[in-house]
């Protein structure tokens, strides 16, 4: 595969920089600044140090013996991103962006959050580096992810409730972008997923690509080669792109991105933008979008707040269009079942987002041969979802 994006942030027809003029100078400045640090040895050293000493990387690649034996097929490994500091893969990216913000002399950071995982990871690095921090979060998400809201406040961040639309992730991102338009001179916007205008999709991917690079090394040691199958959940797609990217040229590795089918693909209550959407432009990039015939963006829905987004990162759109990865769907019910199943079988409570990846593994692992290997990206831990699970009982 060719190296993408191109210089204007395009992944073939996807991606780009569809942003208001007020933000363009900031995006160009960010692109320049990121270009400098990505090859800068002192930045790489610093980033590595924080990942290792602060976030706890590398995370284990855990052989799930009971899960494997109960499902009776492929050998299943879990990439334990839930064991990162703050409880998800989000810290990989916020550390990178905060270090970059610091080098750019920005002392204020903002972020949008859905499940609160990215909000917590941003509030954490803001505390660590002494930055002022505002987190935009939909009111509905504030309600269903209360533990993460408390964590952000404990860390000293201001949580700004967003009322517009369905009061979920899309609306939080709208509001964060509006706030950024007004504060762009001194504020760094830490986008949490591989979406947004260029250079964000590329930059977030690169900061998250450590997941796949570690998997590659770890599975080689344990199994002597690459996994046969790689599975990750996809909302905006940062954990999935982080896991997939190192394998993009390994044609024998089959990759599945799992979208949220919510209450079913035959309803409008889902978040599966690749499986149920059309190409469009939102939040600065061209990608698959849930939208009506007139180009109005539809509200997404998923039980997992972190997947509840009507778009998807442009590089996933590109992987889908070129068939490099296969995008499948899992319903709320299947995700909740997988949530309990993994908790009981392995003593690991997964985030409801990650439970979508587990649920798809449960569908295909039994039919795979025992000598095949599968890696599931366990992107986050599920303590935050206790309230949501209680409500489903």
């Amino acid at each position: 595969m060719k190296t993408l994006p191109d210089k204007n942030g395009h992944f073939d027809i996807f991606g780009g920089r569809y942003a208001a003029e007020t933000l363009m100078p900031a995006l160009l400045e960010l692109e320049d600044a990121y270009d400098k640090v990505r090859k800068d040895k002192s930045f790489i050293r610093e980033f590595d140090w924080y990942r290792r000493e602060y976030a706890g990387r590398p995370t284990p690649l855990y052989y799930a013996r009971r899960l494997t034996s109960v499902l009776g097929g492929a050998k299943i490994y879990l990439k334990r991103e839930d064991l990162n500091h703050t409880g998800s893969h989000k810290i990989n990216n916020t550390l990178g962006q905060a270090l970059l913000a610091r080098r750019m002399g920005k002392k204020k950071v903002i972020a949008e959050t859905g499940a609160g995982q990215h909000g917590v990871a941003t509030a954490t690095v803001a505390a660590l580096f002494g930055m002022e921090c505002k987190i935009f979060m939909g009111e509905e998400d504030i309600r269903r992810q209360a533990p993460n809201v408390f964590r952000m406040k404990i860390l000293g961040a201001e949580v700004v409730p967003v009322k517009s639309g369905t009061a979920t992730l899309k609306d939080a991102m709208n509001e964060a972008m509006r706030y950024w338009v007004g504060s762009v001179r001194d504020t760094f916007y830490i986008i949490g997923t591989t979406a947004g205008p260029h250079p964000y999709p590329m930059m977030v991917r690169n900061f998250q690509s450590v997941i796949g690079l570690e998997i590659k090394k770890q599975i080689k040691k344990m199994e002597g080669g690459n996994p046969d199958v790689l599975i990750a959940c996809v909302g905006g797609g940062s954990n999935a792109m982080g896991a997939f990217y190192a394998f993009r040229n390994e044609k024998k590795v089959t990759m599945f991105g799992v979208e949220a089918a919510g209450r079913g693909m035959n309803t409008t209550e889902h978040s599966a933008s690749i499986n149920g959407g059309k190409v469009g432009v939102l939040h600065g990039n061209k990608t698959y979008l849930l939208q009506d015939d007139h180009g109005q963006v539809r509200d997404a829905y998923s039980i997992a707040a972190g997947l509840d987004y009507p778009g998807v990162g442009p590089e996933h759109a590109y992987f889908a269009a070129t068939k490099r990865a296969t995008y499948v769907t899992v319903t709320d019910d299947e995700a909740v079942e997988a949530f309990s199943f993994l908790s009981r079988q392995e003593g690991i409570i997964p985030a409801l987002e990650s439970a979508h990846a587990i649920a798809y593994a449960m569908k295909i692992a039994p039919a795979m041969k025992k000598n095949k290997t599968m890696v599931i990206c366990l992107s986050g831990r599920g303590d935050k979802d206790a309230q949501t699970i209680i409500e489903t009982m």
Partner: protein
Amino acid sequence: MGRIGDKFESLRAKNEKALIVYLTAGDPSLAVTKELIFELEKAGVDILEIGVPFSDPTADGPVIQAASQRALKTGTTLASVLKMVADIRLSSQIPIVLFGYFNPIFAYGVEKFARTASEAGVDGVLVVDLPPEEARELRVYSDAAGLDFISLVAPTSGKDRMKTILKTATGFLYYVSITGVTGTAAPKVEDVAREVGKIRKLTKMPIAVGFGISNAKQAKAIGAVADGIVIGSAVVKLIDENRNNSELVKVISNYTREIKEALR
């Protein structure tokens, strides 16, 4: 030269500044929008910016966000806005700029949009989230159809950025007078004067200023340093406040007449 260029030229000859008014199409209904347009023309409004509502207007403040939501609820679509413009053209020559976001245009089809808009009598388009870097996919068709591509210059745009924008801008240049979304702050006249001065050194194109002007006094002060001013949120707010008032059209037309007086 099209209707937009002609308008600026004739105003320049009279030593007048252009009053550009923004309306969100379909708020409170397309029928009222149409009626407003005819009345605004009589009140002396020089150019109309017709906002095509979008579900996620990330460059707009709360007033226009709410108006867009109301317009979408009444079923306003890009197709119905184009039809309205075609109806207006039967009896009016006021220059019309469509203002909006790219996705509704992309969903409609860029080629079909350029053709239909031009046939309907649209004079220019201002697509907030289509900077020069991404504009080609629309301009291949919209330039060919004779539509002006109105470009934004922001307070954050430095000289190099201004040059990039000016290379491809047509019609008039829209200077965003505040670092923020629409209608959320009052512009500082001395800042605007300085920035507009910088742009003047680079182009002869008319420069209009907007994003926060709400009264005749501001209009006069900003009009003194630019070729035109844009009023958006203030009008949209007034429409909302008077939506149950039978004199709605009169209220809006009086308000704009007063502002136009300040620009003569």
